[in-house]
């Protein structure tokens, strides 16, 4: 880790040489500017969605939950607006995860660790916690001073206030999480009256403590030591990705404003960087961006804002620090115009993969069956010979009706000789010897089906058969394959 040790931590070096270096506390300073505004915007957007999405209602009729986004563990259903996911359809989650991973790659190919800087939950919550800290304890200098102060009533009051608000945010974070798994308004009331299930309180406790610890205390250490993405990102990035970059060709040699002006007057080389350390002081991970791209940098662009503010003040053009590519630094040294190739094979491939996986998901989502049949052949015994020599096979047939109203299905077994009988236990209605099975709204029904073939029918030891269900109104057809077993008679 290459944070700015020499200049800023000299006073903290211990008397005896130690082999371990304690983490240095970082006091990020407030800043304002374009990227700060983008960060605030995304913070409001993402946290707004996270905290309030469970309260959005979506009418699905009287027998279904009316929460727009809901993971109903108890009834094994997941709802996302007009989409209802059954347990056997969780592969959609795989698709979402693939899209998420490739979207991360795409972001990386376009603008480096832009995810880390703006959208990562760790960044967003840390940002929010830092805002609280600033409101309560003041900005960088005041916080540094407060830490050095001896314990006093004022200090304790500030500390308690800060931790109270931190815990409130953390608690609401955990609270919002459980709302995705139960009807939100009901659960909120249950939580308030201490009637909610234990598991809700446990999850709130877990997420409250993780939010409080990770966003309040661990902060940049999560990014630097715990998160695998910086390492993976380093392997994925290339010279054309936009990264937060210090234009050292313009900034160097750095010096104080006065010194550099003097140098410039004398016709000596003088850079635009006035060594004010603003870029370093606003950095939430304590990076000195002037040392080049480094693992600790989360690409949030706050140093750009800080530097631009200084440049504006001293009447120099902004953009001494900015999003730029490795390639452009090289090009500028060679006196060429900078280029920004966002569209290139790498980004095209990533985008194509996202579109492809998205299209496959959309296609399967639009064309999925709203009925399902699964057939399980009896194993013990695989077939039974009846008193008159007939052969009977037993099956456990499970029908799923994914519509929100009751539907009936006609069961037909194909592949058997015409005089084969099909009987469903506990089912009286039938049409032309084919049982009619009524399945309730949004449920599955398991029924035992007996298929009997007369003894005089010569059957091979194994006959492939198809179980076909036909929905009575819309004529929706779903099939499942199985076999009919018979004794190997001469």
């Amino acid at each position, binding site marked *: 880790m290459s944070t700015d040790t020499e200049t800023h931590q000299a006073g903290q070096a211990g008397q005896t040489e130690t082999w371990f270096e304690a983490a240095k506390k970082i006091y990020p300073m407030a800043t304002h500017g374009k990227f700060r505004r983008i960060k605030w915007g995304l913070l409001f957007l993402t946290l707004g969605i996270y905290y309030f999405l469970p309260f959005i209602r979506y009418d699905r009729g009287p027998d279904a939950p009316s929460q727009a986004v809901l993971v109903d563990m108890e009834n094994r259903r997941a709802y996302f607006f007009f989409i209802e996911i059954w347990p056997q359809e969780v592969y959609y989650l795989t698709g979402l995860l693939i899209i998420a991973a490739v979207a991360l790659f795409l972001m990386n190919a376009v603008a480096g660790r832009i995810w880390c800087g703006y959208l990562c939950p760790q960044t967003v919550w840390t940002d929010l916690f830092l805002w609280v800290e600033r409101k309560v304890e003041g900005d960088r200098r005041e916080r540094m001073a407060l830490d050095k102060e001896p314990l006093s009533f004022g200090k304790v009051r500030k500390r308690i206030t800060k931790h109270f608000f931190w815990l409130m945010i953390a608690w609401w974070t955990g609270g919002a999480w459980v709302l995705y798994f139960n009807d939100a308004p009901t659960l909120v009331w249950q939580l308030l009256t201490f009637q909610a299930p234990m598991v809700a309180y446990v999850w709130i406790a877990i997420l409250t403590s993780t939010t409080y610890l990770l966003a309040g205390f661990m902060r940049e250490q999560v990014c630097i030591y715990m998160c695998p993405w910086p390492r993976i990102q380093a392997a994925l990035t290339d010279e054309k990705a936009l990264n937060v970059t210090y234009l050292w060709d313009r900034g160097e040699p750095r010096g104080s404003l006065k010194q550099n002006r003097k140098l410039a007057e004398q016709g000596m080389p003088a850079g635009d960087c006035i060594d004010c350390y603003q870029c370093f002081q606003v950095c939430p991970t304590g990076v000195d961006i002037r040392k080049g791209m480094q693992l600790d940098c989360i690409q949030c662009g706050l140093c750009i804002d800080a530097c631009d503010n200084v440049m504006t003040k001293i009447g120099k053009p902004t953009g001494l620090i900015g999003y730029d590519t490795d390639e452009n630094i090289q090009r500028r040294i060679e006196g060429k115009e900078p280029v920004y190739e966002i569209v290139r094979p790498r980004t095209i491939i990533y985008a194509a993969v996202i579109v492809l996986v998205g299209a496959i998901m959309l296609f399967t989502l639009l064309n999925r069956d709203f009925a399902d049949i699964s057939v399980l052949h009896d194993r013990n015994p695989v077939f*039974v*010979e009846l008193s008159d020599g007939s052969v009977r096979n037993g099956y456990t047939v499970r029908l799923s009706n994914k519509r929100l109203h009751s539907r009936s299905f006609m069961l037909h077994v194909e592949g058997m000789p015409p005089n084969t009988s099909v009987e469903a236990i506990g089912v009286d209605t039938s049409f032309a010897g084919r049982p009619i099975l009524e399945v309730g709204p949004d449920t599955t029904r398991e029924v035992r089906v007996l298929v009997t073939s007369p003894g005089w029918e010569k059957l091979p030891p194994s006959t492939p058969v198809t179980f076909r269900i036909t929905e009575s109104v819309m004529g929706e057809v779903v099939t499942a394959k199985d076999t009919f077993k018979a004794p190997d008679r001469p």
Partner: protein
Amino acid sequence: MADIHNKEIDQVSGVETTGHEWDGLKELNNPLPKWWLYLFYVTIVWAVIYWVLYPSWPLISSYTTGILGANQRAEAIAAYEEVIAGRSEFADKVVATPLEDIGKDQQLLQFALANGQAAFGDNCAPCHGGGGAGSEGYPNLQDDTWIWGGTLEDIHTSLQYGIRSDHDEARFGEMPAFGRDELLTGEEIDQVANFVASRVGLTAEEGVDLAAGQTLYADNCAACHGESLEGIQEVGAPSLMSANYLYGKSLADIKAQIDTPRNGVMPAWAGRLDPATIKSLTLYVHSFGGGI
């Protein structure tokens, strides 16, 4: 051991050594982290609290019970009773509903079949097999050969009182031992067995008088098994025309059964299983295919 009053400081790290040395390697005195140590103390305190609260120390003939009165057996029984209570709504309904009507209520039928399946695995599977397919001497419940009848009511009766069990209302039918008790001679047994075999599609032995066998059948067997070998359910005499024989379908098997018959016993379950479970079992067994 090093002199404890003259502590040695390691040059490189500035940490004092413990004085332990192995082949020139000296152990540095880096104490355990404080948080670790305190956690260790907490566990000790915790253990003491636990001794007081929960059963912990073995005594000579008993053990310390702890002031909370914790008892895993009581907890298990409470959990069991909770399950029974939770099921009672359906179980009571099963008892109250006639067997024929249970199937009309989907939910009730699902409960009964699931309950029956579990009870079958615990009580019936050892003899009748996991899927009810039986084996020689143990009736196959999946086919349609029902010696004592295969309607819901018949199955329910067999389950409650058993077959040849010691229950007063047990179904009782016994095949006489024609050979062992010298009711028929060896030759006569051969004749009647061959007659039966010839009628049910087996190959009879050559040179055996089938006409004599027919007469013997009419005199000795027809009373129970019927004039045309169709069996009589009321006395538990199986149909001999069935494809499925309880004790094997071959000439040798038939001879053995006439000579020294086997008469299996089905235990009575009334009193051993609760009425709801017996009814559930009835429905479950009937769902194998039922019969008449």
